[in-house]
């Protein structure tokens, strides 16, 4: 009884499986749904984690109006929420010159164009975001705009196009028809929030609303030292004109929120996989009963436990392997349109191999159950029943 006999047993199990391809495919599909969901959730988790890290690269503090820190962060860094309010430029400029602050990127939220946000920023912001342009140049004067790649495709903007913005993020309070914006550059895909924005100098935002004060919406700040990031927020907050949000703290809170969702999905994918495995065990248990005469004749002819186990385990490994591969290939469905993060699709992540390993182990162990059923059936009785 060497390895070759064992693998021959696998092969016989697979030959048997070939006589019922529909069943094999159905089971593989069930496994694929379960494992595919787990793979997708993990990719989502990794991608959103990565996105949080990427967007905040080099940012130690966010200055904003007093309000919800999470909202301030979501609005000023991920551009997913409305800003909590405006901050006085003079006040902010004073803090930006503070010796503990190394670099600052003031931002001003301007109009929208069909749901795409127009963000006022300084030239340093383009450098920090490593905005490479696909075509055109950076804005040189007010009302010149560069469009992120997603923003450009959503609004169907080309180099040289002009368009009008509509007031505020809240809704249609009327178009600013006296101030056309002009597209002078299209950004390259960065896989970040800037892809979905229209970027323009700060002055544009202020010129559109001449009767409003020239305020910032937020200032992204890099401090001289980690210690400064720890101590500055208290003094910034002391005069009540604004606050400083520490992204790591807020991100931990966001993560725990995301993790709750992930846990729900992971639980569902585990459940689906468990159901698929249970269905397989049930089917092979029935196989051991239905084919008891045929199995008894094999055993009368000397087939031993290892051979019967190999026969049953072969299809288990095959179906789980197929399900795993199908689940992996199905990850394209996870690239949902409009998702704020880019998923690492069709790249291997460690979980893929963990799942393959655990799946193999599950197959090896679960195949023992129907094998046990087959081997504990009396050959004598099964042959007489035939």
């Amino acid at each position, binding site marked *: *009884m060497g390895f070759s*006999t064992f693998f*021959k*047993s696998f092969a*016989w199990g697979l*030959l*048997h499986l070939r*006589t*019922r391809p529909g069943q094999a495919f159905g089971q593989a599909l069930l496994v694929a749904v379960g494992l595919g969901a787990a793979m997708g959730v993990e990719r989502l988790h990794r991608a959103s984690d990565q996105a949080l890290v990427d967007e905040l690269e080099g940012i130690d503090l966010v200055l904003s109006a007093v309000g919800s820190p999470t909202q301030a962060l979501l609005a000023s860094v991920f551009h997913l929420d409305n800003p909590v309010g405006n901050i006085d430029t003079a006040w902010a400029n004073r803090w930006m010159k503070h010796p503990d602050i190394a670099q600052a990127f003031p931002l001003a939220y301007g109009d929208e164009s069909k749901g795409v946000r127009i963000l006022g920023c300084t030239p340093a912001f383009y450098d920090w975001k490593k905005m490479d342009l696909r075509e055109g140049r950076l804005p040189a004067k007010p009302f010149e705009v560069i469009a992120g790649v997603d923003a450009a495709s959503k609004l169907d903007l080309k180099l040289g196009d002009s368009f009008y913005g509509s007031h505020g993020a809240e809704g249609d309070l009327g178009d600013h028809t006296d101030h056309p914006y002009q597209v002078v550059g299209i950004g390259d895909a960065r896989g970040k929030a800037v892809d979905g924005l229209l970027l323009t100098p700060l002055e544009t935002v202020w010129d559109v609303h001449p009767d409003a004060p020239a305020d910032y919406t937020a200032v992204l700040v890099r401090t001289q030292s980690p210690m400064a990031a720890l101590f500055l927020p208290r003094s910034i907050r002391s005069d009540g004109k604004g606050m400083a949000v520490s992204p790591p703290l807020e991100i931990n809170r966001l993560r725990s929120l995301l993790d709750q969702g992930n846990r729900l999905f992971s639980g569902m994918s585990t459940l689906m996989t468990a159901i698929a495995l249970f269905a397989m065990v049930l089917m092979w248990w029935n196989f051991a009963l239905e084919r008891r*005469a*045929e199995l008894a*004749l*094999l*055993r*009368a*002819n*000397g*087939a*031993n436990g290892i*051979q019967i186990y190999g026969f049953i385990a072969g299809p288990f490994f095959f179906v789980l392997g197929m399900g795993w591969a199908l689940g992996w290939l199905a990850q394209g469905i996870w690239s949902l349109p409009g998702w704020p993060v880019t998923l690492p699709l069709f790249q291997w992540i460690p979980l893929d191999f963990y799942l393959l390993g655990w799946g193999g182990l599950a197959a090896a162990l679960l195949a023992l159950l129907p094998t046990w059923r087959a081997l504990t059936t009396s*050959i*004598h009785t099964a*042959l*007489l029943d*035939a």
Partner: protein
Amino acid sequence: MNPVLISHAASHVYPSGRTVVWPDFTLYAGQVVGFKGHSGCGKSTALHTTGGLLPLATGTLELPDLGLLRPGVSVPPLWRKHWMGWVPQRPFFWPGFSVLKNLEMTAWAKSTALTPSLLDLVVPLELDGLLLERADRLSLGQQQRVSLLRSMVGSPRVILADEPTASLDDFQAAQALKILQNWAQETKGAVLIASHDARTHSFLDDSILFHKPTTDGL
């Protein structure tokens, strides 16, 4: 004549306590021997015990120069794998598999391979051209002959057949018995048939009578 299998004072005891005892017998090379008697008198039990499927309670079973079965000692693996072949009462096959696949599967169970001499038998057994047909779709007579051919896989010393003629008409029954007789004579093996079918009688070289009812209890 060379003895192929010697059964001495053999018996089997079921977990329920039911005891089946049968007379001593010796199978000689080239012989077809029958267990005769009414159903329920223990023929199948004796046949399955002889084939190593049920444990021996008393006595010995010996394949001279090859192996020995004794009570309380597990059946040597080669007993089933190499020295015994089986013809079930009703021919049944692995669903969806061809004749050849069924033969190969038996060879796999026996950890051996099909030999050219075995495949040569398809001509006298009138199975030529059917090797790649699905075994479960053949006519009953053809299935019976495939079943007989299958019992010869791995060149066993003894072929054990439980009521092999039960589902066959007179012609098919005579044909099957003739095939077994030829096999025994040509391979110097022995065939042991458990049957209450009178049509088998004229083919038997010897018969062991199971006239005693089974004894109950311990």
